[in-house]
């Protein structure tokens, strides 16, 4: 096939094709490139590619071209890691809006003199957009899967995942992780007195009071089951966790939700059990749950509406504050 036929074929490709000589100077590019860069090849032929696209200096793309020319190594530049490498635009109007095409770029060495390096560019804009949309939808679905449908806080699945991830992180970074088990006092009596509908409303209010009482973004109250909630705190030792627990306890008390059948107070209150550790390799996450549970039972035994800690130095429970 002669050169003219080759060039005609190249111009029909729905892909950008750029050809460089062995010094990295531009030999030609196809009609796709002219269309999307707004530059005719004859205006820039013979110039180093980084002079044509000045922003390429010190870029990974230039690095890849040098690798192709010097070592004959091939490279790929993906839109995920190199957003919009070259100033290419899908439509002329996008240039004014500075909305560049998302590009997937292949750089390969060639050995058909005078061509030494071939750059191929694919338009990934639609793919990247679809990917983003799918990801947003999937995040939304995941969020639904991990939310407790009644109270809107995390559900048991969310708690299990939070605990295992954060426990692993605490172990690898050798920092504290604390677990708070929170239980509404005499909740059965509340349901018996007011009915399940009012009971659900009370749970919703308690859950939001707890969630709103958290400062750190990413900390998430989860409904462990029934009227029990749980919270993991990464980087919190016993003292820090106790402070959070006490704040949460006071918040619920501050709701002033009438609870005439409670053995503790005239209002809805919670008891909280706390355990905090720097996890060793041998310690399973479940141990933290049993210790916090133990502390919670002890808070109940001592009259409810209080926080108790599991003390690791003597492996027993004691009052927090």
């Amino acid at each position: 096939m002669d050169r003219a036929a080759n060039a005609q074929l190249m111009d029909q490709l729905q892909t950008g094709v750029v050809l460089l000589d062995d010094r990295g100077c531009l030999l030609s590019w196809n009609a796709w490139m002219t269309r999307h860069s707004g530059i005719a090849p004859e205006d820039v032929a013979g110039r180093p590619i980084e002079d044509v696209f000045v922003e390429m200096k010190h870029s990974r793309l230039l690095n890849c071209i040098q690798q192709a020319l010097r070592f004959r190594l091939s490279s790929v530049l993906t839109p995920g890691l190199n957003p919009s490498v070259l100033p290419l635009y899908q439509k002329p109007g996008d240039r004014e809006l500075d909305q560049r095409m998302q590009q997937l770029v292949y750089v390969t060495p060639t050995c058909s003199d005078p061509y030494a390096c071939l750059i191929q560019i694919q338009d990934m804009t639609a793919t990247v957009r679809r990917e983003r949309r799918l990801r947003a939808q999937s995040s939304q679905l995941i969020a639904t899967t991990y939310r407790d449908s009644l109270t809107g806080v995390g559900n048991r699945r969310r708690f299990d995942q939070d605990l295992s991830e954060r426990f692993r992180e605490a172990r690898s970074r050798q920092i504290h992780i604390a677990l708070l088990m929170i239980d509404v006092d005499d909740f059965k009596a509340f349901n018996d007195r007011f009915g399940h509908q009012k009971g659900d409303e009370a749970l919703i209010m308690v859950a939001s009071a707890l969630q709103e009482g958290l400062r750190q973004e990413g900390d998430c109250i989860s409904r462990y089951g029934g009227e029990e909630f749980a919270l993991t705190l990464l980087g919190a030792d016993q003292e820090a966790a106790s402070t959070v627990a006490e704040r949460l306890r006071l918040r619920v008390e501050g709701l002033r939700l009438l609870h005439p059948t409670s053995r503790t107070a005239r209002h809805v209150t919670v008891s909280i059990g706390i355990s905090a550790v720097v996890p060793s390799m041998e310690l399973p996450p479940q141990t933290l749950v049993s210790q916090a549970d133990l502390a919670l039972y002890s808070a109940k035994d001592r009259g409810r509406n209080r926080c108790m800690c599991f003390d690791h130095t003597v492996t027993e429970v004691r009052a927090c504050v």
Partner: protein
Amino acid sequence: MAFDESGHDEPTLDELQLDALGELFNLGVGRAANSLSLIVKDEVELSAPSISFAYPSQITQALLDSEFKELSMVAMDFSGPFEARAVLLFPERNALAILSHMLDPNMPPEELSEFEQEAMCEIGNIILNACMSALADEFGVEFMGSLPEHHFSDTESLPLFGGDQKEVLLILQIHLSIRQERINGHLLFLLSVSSLHALLTCVDSYLTRLGIR
């Protein structure tokens, strides 16, 4: 080098050869770390602390025995004074950890989508090209490198490693540190026996040029 083509003896290199290879690969991964740091705009450290040899069947067995069943692999073919298929291999969980640092820290830790496979390809491409260009530089030779391909594999099917007893795997352990997280993987070079000999010839003349041998 003691190497029994028919049997299962470990191919062995003398200490000088091993040291030289280890140093050259560390030079390579060091360059790759620079490129990756530029992408993440944060410090990335890469090191290749150990180097060893094995047969493809042994590696298949080792992977079968390991706790990681899902692997993410990036493969490239190189030809020059010796021919090698280079494979960067991470347990899929580790690959996801790298990608979440590179792409989006809030990425759901589910599985590698096509988008992430592409990015993984590029990361492998950067590391493998850096290693090969370091070798090319120091040996004064030239390689032709193919475009990278991403593969998933459970350890039950490891088609990339052939399984030909006449081939040898050079195995580098890879440590990647990013934002206080350390992620481990392996870099494997599948070489025919004659390619291994050619590689060692390159190493020897490199050592001679440095006046060490």
